[in-house]
């Protein structure tokens, strides 16, 4: 039976030295951040913070130095990630590029693209958005219809991307377009492009989320021109590349830490000597948290060893998002206080933010159902 395999991960001493540096940096940078701000974590977009991370050498850590990277190990990168996420640092101005756009360009981009984009990403100067979903294509990503037609010197693009987080404040977007139409072969004929969202023919319309916040967008392409030099990889190789990119996206430690701020507020609330029920609730959450960290570390170890832990990463993401989504429910069941937007106690505000954000945890980067389908395939069921 084909199946997954997890081995205990181990961090080298160098990674622990680095951890101390990262903590010191974050303590200084975030000392004024409230629990509710920390709960936003990778919802927070702060270019100045990202530039400081870049200056420290903590973006593009594993990339070669010739592209502005730092030749560090995947495990050192892991330590930086888990520390920044555990601290609730506002990472989203560099996060997408560090996690997926940069690695994608490193793997499939042209030499000119690598030289142009990777050093700037590593300095924390370039924010990326991801253009995959469309109004009629969500989980069925291969059904996208936005077309890129060849014209002199490049491509003319028409269509609409949706749920494009931070497109309105990003410098570039990596978008998946259809370059060939053959209904029978929908996985073929897809191609990835680097798109400057400020180009003529591109309109970015905000989509306000249920909390009233703006991070989503609808990006409309009307005869927008994308130069040939901005194509990522070969024409028609988009599906394979996107699959690889989503595997990068899924493998990180962020997939269980989204609700850490609420667990911390819960512990503060129940006090040093909690009652039996409160203690059991806290203990159970910590048991899940500690286990997920080991699972996540195990995936990091496999990445470091040059393996391809796609299945294991999907398992960790599914278990992790289920956990982080459960935390506000568990806190509500124990304490029952009203969640708030921006009044009340820290606990109420963190609970309010996470209660309203939690539905997205099992949607972003591939729904729970899609992930479980990937796991089922790994088990040999499909």
């Amino acid at each position, binding site marked *: 039976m084909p199946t*997954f395999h997890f081995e*205990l991960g181990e961090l080298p001493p160098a990674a622990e030295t680095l951890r101390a540096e990262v903590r010191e940096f974050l303590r200084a940078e975030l000392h004024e951040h409230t629990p509710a701000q920390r709960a936003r974590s990778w919802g927070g977009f702060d270019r100045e913070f990202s530039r400081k991370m870049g200056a420290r050498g903590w973006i593009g850590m594993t990339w070669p130095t010739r592209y502005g990277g730092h030749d560090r190990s995947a495990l050192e990168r892991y330590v930086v990630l888990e520390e920044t996420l555990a601290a609730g640092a506002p990472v989203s101005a560099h996060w997408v590029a560090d996690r997926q756009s940069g690695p994608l360009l490193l793997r499939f981009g042209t030499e000119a693209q690598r030289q142009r984009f990777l050093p700037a990403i590593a300095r924390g100067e370039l924010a990326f958005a991801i253009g995959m979903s469309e109004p009629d294509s969500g989980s069925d990503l291969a059904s996208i219809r936005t077309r890129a037609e060849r014209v002199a010197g490049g491509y003319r693009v028409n269509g609409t991307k949706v749920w494009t987080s931070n497109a309105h404040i990003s410098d570039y977007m990596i978008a998946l377009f259809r370059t060939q139409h053959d209904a029978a072969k929908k996985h073929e004929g897809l191609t990835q492009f680097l798109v400057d969202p400020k180009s003529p023919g591109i309109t970015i319309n905000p989509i306000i989320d249920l909390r009233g916040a703006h991070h989503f967008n609808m990006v409309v392409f009307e005869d927008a021109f994308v130069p040939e030099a901005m194509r990522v990889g070969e024409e028609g190789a988009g599906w394979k590349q996107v699959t690889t990119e989503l595997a990068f996206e899924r493998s990180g430690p962020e997939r269980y830490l989204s609700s*850490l701020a609420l667990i911390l*507020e819960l512990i*503060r609330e129940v006090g040093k000597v909690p009652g039996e029920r409160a203690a059991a609730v806290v203990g159970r959450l910590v*048991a899940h948290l500690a*286990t997920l960290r080991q699972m996540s570390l195990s995936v990091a170890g496999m990445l470091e060893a040059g393996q391809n832990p796609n299945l294991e990463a999907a398992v960790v993401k599914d278990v992790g998002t289920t956990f982080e989504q459960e935390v506000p429910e568990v806190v509500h069941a124990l304490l029952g206080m009203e969640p708030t937007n921006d009044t009340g106690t820290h606990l109420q505000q963190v609970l309010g933010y996470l209660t309203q954000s939690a539905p997205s945890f099992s949607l972003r980067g591939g729904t729970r159902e899609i992930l479980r*389908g990937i796991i089922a395939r790994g088990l040999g*069921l499909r």
Partner: protein
Amino acid sequence: MNELRAILSDVVTRLFTERVTRELSEAAEKGEWPGALWQAIEENGLTLPLVPETKGGAGGTWGDAYVVVSAAGRHAVPLPLAETIVASWLLLAAGLEVPLGPLTVAPVQRDERLKLVRRDGGLRLDGTAARVPWGRAAKHVVVVDETDGRATVALVAAGGARVTPDTNLAREPRDTLAFAGAPVLAAAPTAGLPHDAVRLYGALVRAAQMAGGLEAILALATRYATERRQFGRPIGQFQAIQQGLAVLAGHAAAAGMAAANAFRAADRRDPWFETAVAKARVGEAAGIGASIAHQVHGAIGFTYEHQLQFVTRRLWSWRAEFGGESEWATLLGRSVAERGAETLWSFLAAR
């Protein structure tokens, strides 16, 4: 996985696959002691993985023992292998010799005590311990009692107890042992063990057995889903079945990580936190996992004839033995709360 572990894994998997037959499992449930299987396991050096080679063991670590204990759970081996390993560890910690043959530990229940007393010119054991795993089958019982604020480990012959047999759901012996001045064969105080060492290390091995059991039921349910056909296709092609098995896979993976990490912590001589985490996390996985595996199997999995029940009945008992999820979660929650929210992350990241 290092070389010793790879070899151990091959040996136990081969041995258990060949020897733990349906007939053997059924006979064991009827009270028959699988002596030939015990002997084969002992001859392969698998009963004492932690004991130094100079003393007849395999000279391994808890990490090596994990391979044996989780495999015993995976194959639902009806023998006190986990108990023998814990008992041998307690004896080693006190610097005592480890006898051959099946061992068990007592007392296993919270708030029970077996008292070591000096009487008639020697050390003797008094008291009653309920639910002692494999009490009737063990050659020796290893007891931990607290004397003068220190844990004392004592070895007594199982024959020194009056045995009232009972079983757990899987019909593994869980007997009441009554000692009335039973002579202690050897005893020594040890600074290296907490007073709740039996419950702690008992919880540790049960977590590994359950993790193995979860692997087994995941494999059984997955295979069944590819073989059983309804509506003209294998039921594993239905999304509802796929989603259920993916959830089971997640719990099995979490269980394996939590248990293996606790064994690693035991090798650092600091297993309390990771064991509490493992017993709480794996116990939860056992309940959910068993439920999904049964749902996938349908009615056939609910029969005695099908092998699924050999594992699921063990999971239902093991998750409660040596403290259930709520007990360990409560202890864990108290220790976390006492340390405070500020240190939670740095504590976790250092483990």
